[in-house]
């Protein structure tokens, strides 16, 4: 009898609170993160039969196929495009974030909204918008033809550069927001102190602004670089199949290629690359909270 009441006490004081607070989160994580991940990992080690059905038969075949030279070329191209997109986004976003952070008036909100509102709109639609704008009979070409600046429509679509443009455009808010919050926190009197002590604007930038906003720059770069590796529809629509990226490769395995195990193996690689980048970010002293993790 006493034993029983002790047990129920323990249940009430220890188990019940833990159950009610942690259990829902754990359940959510298990359902939506752990199980799908395990499923992907398992499939990546599976075989397929002649009808492209997944057969639960252990094999390394999918991973061996990943080092195919054609694939390696695509990985390199993906990394290059993601890298260039990141650099370009950083170069454009930094001055922009600086202006928002340093503007005191009501215009600040206007600038902020200019970043946020497109962010709320589906990026697929916006990418199609670019296609309409840049196409052979698109607005830009029609306009240039009309003012007789060109006699033939320019071939603006389906270049790697167009893909980069789309990436930068889509991922711009992810770069601006961390930069903005880092610049916002930057104490203006430090800039004055720097100038007071004889530093020119360029010196102040490298000595004070850059080191003090580096964590914002890191997180912005991570937040652009990682999605850029996987945004297959941007290279699909704007690159027109000329610019294959790892995201396209994965998408194709699950759709037209119908080779789920290979797609899963590719996904695993992409996840590993992502984790590696986040680890590097952490090592460099990056703040996980600013990644939204």
């Amino acid at each position, binding site marked *: 009898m006493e034993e029983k009441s002790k047990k129920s006490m323990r249940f009430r004081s220890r188990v019940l609170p833990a159950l009610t607070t942690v259990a829902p989160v754990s359940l959510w994580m298990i359902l939506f993160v752990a199980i799908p991940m395990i499923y992907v990992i398992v499939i990546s080690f599976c075989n397929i039969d002649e009808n492209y059905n997944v057969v639960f038969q252990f094999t390394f075949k999918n991973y061996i196929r990943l080092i195919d030279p054609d694939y390696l070329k695509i990985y390199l191209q993906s990394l290059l495009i993601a890298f260039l997109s990141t650099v370009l986004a950083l170069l454009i976003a930094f001055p922009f974030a600086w202006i928002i952070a340093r503007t005191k008036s009501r215009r600040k909100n206007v600038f902020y909204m200019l970043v946020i509102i497109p962010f709320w709109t589906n990026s697929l639609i916006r990418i199609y918008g670019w296609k309409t704008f840049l196409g052979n009979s698109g607005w830009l070409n029609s306009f240039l033809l009309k003012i007789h600046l060109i006699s033939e429509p320019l071939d603006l679509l389906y270049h790697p550069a167009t893909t980069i443009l789309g990436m930068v455009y889509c991922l711009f808010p992810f770069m601006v927001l961390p930069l903005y919050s880092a610049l916002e926190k930057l*104490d203006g*009197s*430090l800039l*004055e102190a720097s*100038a*007071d*002590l*004889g*530093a020119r604007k360029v010196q102040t930038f490298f000595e004070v602004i850059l*080191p003090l906003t580096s964590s914002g720059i890191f997180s912005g770069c991570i937040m652009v670089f990682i999605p850029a590796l996987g945004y297959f529809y941007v290279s699909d629509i704007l690159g027109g199949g000329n610019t294959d990226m790892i995201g396209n490769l994965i998408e194709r395995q699950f759709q037209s290629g119908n080779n789920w195990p290979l797609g899963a193996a590719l996904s695993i690689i992409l996840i590993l690359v992502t984790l590696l980048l986040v680890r590097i970010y952490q090592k460099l002293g990056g703040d996980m909270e600013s990644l939204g993790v």
Partner: protein
Amino acid sequence: MSEYIVELDHVNKIYGTNHVVKDMNLHVKAGEFLTLLGSSGCGKTTTLRMIAGFEIPSSGSIRVEGESIEAKQPFERDVNTVFQTYALFPHKTIFDNIAYGLRMKKVPKAEIRERVEEMLSMVQLEGFDDRFPSQLSGGQKQRVAIARALINRPKVLLLDEPLGALDLKLRKQMQLELKRLQKKLNITFIYVTHDQEEALTMSDRIAVMHDGIIDQVAAPSEIYEHPATKFVATFIGETNVFEGCIVEIDGRTCEVAVENGFVQANGDDFSNGEFVTISVRPEKIKFYKDDIGSFGLQGIVKDYIYVGSVLKCNIVLPNGNEVRAERLSGEEVPKVGEVVYVTWDVGDAVLLHNRDNTIYNALNNMPIV
């Protein structure tokens, strides 16, 4: 070359419709400790920032050693600032913070090390080289900020309420240290504060500011004994103010009709019938049971407050105004509730033109039709 190191002539600063600094003229002598004293929003910090180069004057000229600097960027000016919030670089060590100015000027490394060490010992922070600002106390940060500014050997050091964030005891100690440092290095200090005691303790001269205007620039004793305006008289220390109208002038002595009777004060350049303000410090107020002076205001002793060396006394006049007086402890004094006569030595009262008078202001601001 003039004896002044910093000269401000007809300097104005206007933000939108806000006229922050109004036609300011201020001449600072080389090697002096000058304080800009005033309550918040009086334009003292703006003045300092214009000298530093963080703000551009709307009009007027600012010269350092006779050379116009208003077009110069902050980094081109031979002045350095100690900020209220210290503004130490959080990502740099104490050594790198102090060395910053010299590094920007590309001074050789060996000399930088030597001069930083010298500065660290001067502000008593030897061995703090490798620490970061976040590991320092408020007082230590303050010293680093001073060392970081002084290492550049500026012609003028600007200090914007540098002790504002420190507790009282530390503030007192730093006041003396700063004063000693200034004497030792013989650098001109322009110091901004709203703390009148701090200003009186440290300054060679004080410029009392009020609403964008300098009311008076003078030595602390002069400011205290002979305030030029009612604002200065009431802002610095305790005082009793009487407003009235001159009814008779005999040599320097003016007879003034105030609300509760007639009083006297000495003054030059006053005219009969003029509205004036009289300021008398509490320690100069005398009060007796009998009307024995050449003039006296009747009042009733309200209470005494014993504060150690002196006894503070409040006397209520018939119109309800209170007069504050002081007596040395142990002296025999009238009892609470007794009728007394309030008076003073004519030479102890300060007679002021009543520029604060609302009628005077109303007349002055009237649009010309």
